[in-house]
Structures are given as C-alpha cells and as structure tokens.
C-alpha cells in the first residue's frame, strides 16, 4: 500500500516510522557476553532481508556482523548473528567483552543507514573490584536507605532475587547512591531495578548484594505487539506478595501513571480493554490488554505494593508495530435498541480446540455470558448464541433484544494463554430494528400456532431462517418464506414475512425462537420471539413447560418472564418446601424421574384436569396444611392454577421421600412424611 500508516494517526514519530525494536540498554561484564534481541514485523520482505549489527560512528554505522556472513575485523570469533524469521526476531551475541566495546550500536534490517534500525547502548562493567550499589533508585524517589557492601573481587556471581537468598534480611544504614560507574540516577527517570525494603532490624554481618550477571533479567522485558493486537504481561513477585496490591503503571515524565490495580481502579484510556487476573501461583498475576494503539507503546512497570513507596517492580517495554495479519474488524459495534448485533472474533489456528467464551468487561473482571461448552448466563437466556467456524478461525456471537444496559466492552476469550484476545465495544443507539413482529405468542397445546417475522426490502436477497434457541446454539427449524420468489425485480413492501408454522403445538415447543437473516455465510440480524404454550400435560423434560394462565402475583414477583427465569440456581436440594414460586417449580420439576404422570392424569380427584385455569376445582390438600405451604395466592390456599398445586404437592412428596430415605428429618412446615403411596392423599 502506498501509505504505511493511515494518515491522521496520533503517535510518537519514532514509534511509527521505526518498526524495529530491541532493548534500549544492555550491560555485560568484562570478559562476559551479552545477547541482544531485535524484533521486526514478519512481512515477507523483512524475513528475507539482511540483518545487521553495526557500531555508531560520527557519520555512519559500521557493520560489526551481518546475516550475509560479514564479520568486521577484530570481531572474529566473538560475535554471531542468528535470525528467526518465523518469530520475527534476530539475536546478536557478543562475547569476550572489553571496555572498548562500550558504545552505541544499532540492530537493524536492510542497509545500514536507512533508519530501519534500533539503537542499543552497550555497557560493559567490571565484574571484579569493589563496587557499591549496582542498581539505582529512580529520580524522584525519596532517598532510601539500603545496605551495601563491596563484592569479593575476582568472583563472578549470578544475581538472585533477594527473597530467594537464604537468611537474607535487608537492613537500614545510610548509603551513598552514586556508584563507581557514574551518575547515581539515570536522567530519564527510568527505573533499573527497585529494591525491596522492609522494616527489619539489621543484624551484622551485613549481607552482601550480589552483582548483576549478564543473563539476568535486570533489563526490561520486551513486548513486541501488533497494532490492534493484544498482549499478556505476566509478573510474579513471590509468595510474600500474595495479598499485597498489584498494579501496572505507565512511565511518564511526571512519574508512573496507574493503569490498573487489584483494587479495581482502571485508567479511562484503558477502560474496557484491560484485564488483571491472578495466576495460580501466589504472588503472580497477568495483565491482558487488547486493541493496542500507537499511544500504548512505552515503558510500563508491573509491581506489587505502591509505586514510589514500597514493594517491587518489573520493567516492561512495550512496542507497537503495524501488523500484517488479517485485521480484526471494527472494534466498535453499533446496535439498535431492541435489535440485534453480530460480533465476530478471530482467533489463531492454535486455539481451534480450546474452550472459547464471551464475557462482558467489568472493572473487577470479565463476567462470562456464553461459552462453547453450552453454558449460558441466566441473564442472557434466549438472546445470545455463539457459533464457531474453525475453517476461517472465526467465532460469531449474536446478541439480540438489545437494551441500553448492554452497552459496554465484550471480550472473546479462549483458555489458551498465548491466544490473541479480542475485545469489542458495543454501543446502543436509538433506532428501529429491521426485523419486526410479535415478541410473545401464546398457543394452546394441540392447536396450530404461527410465529411471524417481517423483514424489510434490504433483506430481500438474504437467506432467512427460523431456529429454536437452546443453550448450545440455535437449531434451525423448517419455515416458510411467505414471499415466494417472484419474477418481478422490485421489492413489494407487503408480504415480506417469514412464517414458522406449528400444526400441532406441543408443550416441548415452548421456548425462544429466533428469526434471522444470513448473507454469504455471515450471520445478520436476528429477532427473538417467545412461544408460550398453555394447557396439556406436564413434561419433566425441560422443566419449562408449565402452564401459565393469568399473571400470577407470585409469578411476576419472580421478576422476569419465564424466558428470563433462572434455571437451576436455586435448585439446591432443600429438605422442606417453603413458599414455592413458579420459578422454583421449574427446577424442582427435574427431580421427577421414574414415576410417570399417568398416575395423575386419570385421577381427577387429585385436582388434575385438562383445563388448568378453571377456578373452583375440587382440590384436596396434599401433604400438610395449606397454611404452612403459603401458596401463590396467599389467602386462598387453592390458588388459581390447581395444576401447579398438584405439582407442588408431588414435588414435596418426592423431596420428603428422598429426605426420609437419607435418614434426615423432613423439617420445615409440612407434616409427617406421608405413608406408602397407595393412592391416598
């Protein structure tokens, strides 16, 4: 493309025009070695182009080693360059370091002076000799008192985290922060390493501070991420920090700006696209950021404690480059109130078989809505479906019956850690959905029913369908398109309806149905319609097929329509049956197992009859007095739906029976457990 970057993007010029990324500074010991890692975007040309390591001189950069095989005189045998094109990184290894090697270098691609390079400052320090503090406290901190002591000359030691050194206790003694190397505080405000300080008594002899070895992660951890991509940063500080505040902050001129922490505070610029989650090991956590823009590049600190006051930190250097992958698609999705949205997420090929889920971002985490195992959050019953297309690695989520409260950020997640996480922002706008029709249809068992969905002319050429909503997706159902393919080209504004006909409605047909459109394999708008079936026998199948006659005060106190009824949440086995609302009946219904309902059907004297809504049916109190049961209608124990009462009673029996079988007391408000079931009540 002509333009490498879309004009108009805000960015730091340096970050934009320089896609090569590496460590800003590396340090090695005298006679030791150092490895420099340089990242580049994995375009075809970059993978094949020449890689080089050159030393800065007054007017140009003199090559030290290049991937074409050149090695500068004086460096024979002590420098090597290795390219990993499939990872987009190349390594430069310099060994046998001498003091003369100190200076500015460039690692880059192509020809030397063409600005496709990154400047690396190489520092060589003497390992031997008495040295004081090797790490510096950053500018702006109050002087800290740390314990120091000179090293044993001639010994090379590896740095270990202070927490891992046996018997180590930091002690408090005034110390001089300038060290033999030069300035005591780096001018950019950059932190080299923070020292963990604890208020502890100082015991002599004062423990030693070990030197930093060349292979030690004293320098920042480098992250090279694609524009609009995502990154996962893991930090661990050991068990001692398990319950201490963890945070991520971004280094700026005025200090470190807090981005996110375990207290739930999130910076506005990152709202919706950052998540902090604790890892399994104590004191470790990971931070996921999606939709990375140019302004996200820079130096970060992940830490435990409070910046500038206590705790430990780890430097993270994040660089953003223009990517080469298929774009993720628009990040803001607009949805109309009452309508539906289709959100697509792409995932890596690696993530094909892992669990995928979709969740809504909240300040303290991401609450799961739907996942590929068939879980659907109760709040979203009947209005969300997820389709996985492994062929083009796309996950499609459809959410309908949109309301204002649906605005926010949603994340497509997989269990794989290295998987790209994507987040989309959903905005609800005013408008009219394109698919219209009745939202609730009532039908009686055995009678025919029809669900209709009208579509506008713009969907004339789209594929239309009806499907029945289940937790694991929406299964297509045979439907008829009322507007047959006409020979004329115009779109007749009338007769644009898709019908779903039921010749003979059964109770199992109750539930949510979606009418939707599809175009070229891509899911479009959908509309949810709820079919309620009344009358007829009860089934233990889905527990949903319960007759509803008139709005029952207790039923409406459940707060939602049956579609939104919570399922199974309150189904924890209770030894007694307190005021059962229809909601509870749903879950209790699933306890019915081996006893068929034919026992009830023929027995009219049990209050079971086909016309469930007739008042004044004769009914016998089942299993205890009506008072304690507190039926739905309160004062009148019989209530309006006698069928429900029969249901309640039967369930009560079952529960008590199981309770008795387990040797527990029946408890609660029902009387002594009924005797053997010989048809008496």
């Amino acid at each position, binding site marked *: *493309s*002509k*333009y*490498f*970057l*879309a*004009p*108009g*993007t*805000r*960015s*730091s*010029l340096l970050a*934009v*025009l320089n896609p090569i990324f590496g460590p800003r500074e590396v340090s090695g010991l005298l006679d030791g070695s150092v490895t420099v890692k340089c990242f580049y975007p994995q*375009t*075809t*040309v970059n*993978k*094949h*182009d*020449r890689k080089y390591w050159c030393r800065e001189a007054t007017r140009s950069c003199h090559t030290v080693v290049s991937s074409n095989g050149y090695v500068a005189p004086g460096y024979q045998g002590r420098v090597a360059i290795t390219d990993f094109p499939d990872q987009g990184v190349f390594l430069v290894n310099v060994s046998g370091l001498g003091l003369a090697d100190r200076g500015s270098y460039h690692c880059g691609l*192509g020809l030397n002076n063409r600005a496709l390079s990154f400047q690396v400052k190489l520092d060589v320090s003497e390992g031997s000799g008495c040295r004081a503090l090797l790490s510096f406290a950053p500018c702006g901190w109050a002087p800290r008192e740390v314990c120091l002591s000179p090293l044993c000359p001639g010994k090379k030691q590896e740095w270990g985290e202070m927490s891992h050194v046996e018997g180590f206790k930091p002690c408090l003694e005034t110390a001089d922060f300038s060290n033999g190397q030069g300035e005591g505080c780096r001018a950019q405000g950059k932190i080299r390493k923070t020292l963990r300080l604890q208020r502890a008594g100082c015991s002599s002899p004062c423990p030693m501070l070990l030197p930093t070895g060349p292979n030690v992660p004293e320098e920042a951890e480098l992250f090279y991420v694609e524009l609009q991509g995502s990154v996962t940063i893991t930090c661990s500080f050991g068990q001692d920090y398990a319950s201490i505040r963890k945070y991520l902050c971004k280094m*700026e*001129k005025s200090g470190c*700006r807090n981005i996110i922490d375990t207290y739930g505070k999130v910076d506005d*610029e990152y709202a919706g696209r950052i998540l902090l989650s604790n890892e399994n090991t104590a004191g470790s956590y990971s931070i996921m950021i999606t939709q990375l823009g140019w*302004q996200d590049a820079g130096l970060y600190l992940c830490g435990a404690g409070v910046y500038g006051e206590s705790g430990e930190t780890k430097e993270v250097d994040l660089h953003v480059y223009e990517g080469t992958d298929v774009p993720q698609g*628009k990040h803001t999705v*607009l949805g109309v109130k009452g309508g539906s949205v289709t959100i697509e997420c792409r995932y890596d090929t690696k993530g094909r078989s892992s669990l995928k889920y979709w969740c809504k971002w909240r300040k303290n985490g991401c609450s799961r809505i739907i996942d590929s195992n068939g879980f659907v959050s109760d709040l979203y019953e009947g209005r969300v479906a997820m389709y996985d297309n492994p062929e083009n690695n796309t996950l499609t989520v459809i959410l309908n019956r949109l309301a204002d409260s649906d605005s926010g950020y949603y994340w497509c997640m997989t269990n794989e850690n290295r998987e790209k996480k994507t987040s989309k922002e959903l905005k609800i706008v005013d408008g009219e959905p394109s698919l219209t029709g009745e939202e609730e249809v009532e039908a009686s068992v055995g009678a025919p029913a029809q669900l209709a969905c009208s579509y506008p002319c713009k969907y004339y050429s789209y594929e239309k369908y009806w499907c029945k909503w289940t937790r694991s997706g929406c299964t297509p159902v045979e439907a008829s398109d009322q507007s047959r393919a006409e020979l004329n080209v115009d779109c007749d504004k009338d007769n644009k309806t898709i019908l779903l006909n039921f010749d003979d409605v059964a109770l199992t047909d109750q539930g949510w149905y979606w009418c939707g459109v599809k175009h070229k394999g891509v899911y479009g*708008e959908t509309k949810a319609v709820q079919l309620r079936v009344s009358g007829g026998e009860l089934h233990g199948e889905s527990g949903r097929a319960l007759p509803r006659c008139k709005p029952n005060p207790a039923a409406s106190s459940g707060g939602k329509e049956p579609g939104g009824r919570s399922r199974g949440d309150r189904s924890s086995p209770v030894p007694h049956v307190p005021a059962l609302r229809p909601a509870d009946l749903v879950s209790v219904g699933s306890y019915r197992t081996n006893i068929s309902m034919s026992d009830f059907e023929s027995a009219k004297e049990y209050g079971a009859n086909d016309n469930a809504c007739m008042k004044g049916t004769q009914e016998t109190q089942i299993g205890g007095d009506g008072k304690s049961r507190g039926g739905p209608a309160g004062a009148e124990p019989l209530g309006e739906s006698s069928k429900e009462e029969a249901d309640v009673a039967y369930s009560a029996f079952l529960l008590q029976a199981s309770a008795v079988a387990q040797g527990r007391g029946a408890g609660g408000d029902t009387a002594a457990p009924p005797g053997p079931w010989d048809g008496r009540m």
Partner: protein
Amino acid sequence: MSCKTFFSDTGIAYPVLAGYPQSYDDEEVVLVNNKCKCVTVTSKFVPSKENPEEEILERNIRIIVPLKSRENISDPTSPLRTTFVYRMTDLCKKCDPIEIELGGEIYNAQQSTSCDDTETCYTYNRDKCYTTTFPFLYHGERKILQAALTPASCYAE
C-alpha cells in the same frame, strides 16, 4: 496550502489531542507517509517563538531525494532522474479506501476525488517487488530473462 486546510477541515488532530488529558508534550501526528516518493509530513504543537505561552502547529516535512534513481525505476537502462517534483496537494490526498459504516453495513470508500492510480515513484517501495527484463546471450541464443531489482521483496511467501 491545501494540505493544511485539509487537515483542519477534517479536524482530526484537534479533537483527538483534546480528548487525551495525559497526552505527551511531544505528540506528533503523521499526515503523510509516502513510501513511493519518500516523503513524511508530521505536525505537532510547539510553543510559539514570539509568545512562549501560546502553542502553534508546526509541520515537519521530511523529503529524502534519491539522487541515484532512474527516471523509470523499473528500467535500469533509463536515464538518471534529475527532476523531482513534490506537490503537497498530491501528497496529502487520502487515496486509500477506508471502511465506513452506513446503516449497519460496511463499505469501502475513497476519501478523495481525482485519485490517480499511477503515481510515478522516485524510489522503491520496500513491500513491492520490482523486476525488469534483459536480453541474455547464451550459446549464441538470445533469451529475454526476468531479474529482480529488489531481491528481498520478491520472495513468494
């Protein structure tokens, strides 16, 4: 210059900068990044020289003139180019199609009129492969062969 009016008409930089309270002091906006002619134009706010309290918009134009390139970069036998023309109007044109959403559908739209597809390039675009043909005499037989002018960019995968 029309690049400037274009800039303030779309008002890209102003609301963007204003919306970020923690923006860096030296935030630059990239206006032009033309790899074909090797021109980069960026702009940023700097304190005015007359009145340091005030901030003015400063535009940085970086042009790298490839003196050793040919008039036709795909033909190494063409003469050396001696004339280089840089027009801000042409450089500031946004000819790349972008995605916009209308009524829920995504369309690709071009933001400028009179976009000339064939732009004469002064130097090679690193992401494109440039080849040329040349006559090759071998065993008395003259063959026309194709050679890559930018080998690194011409790999298949």
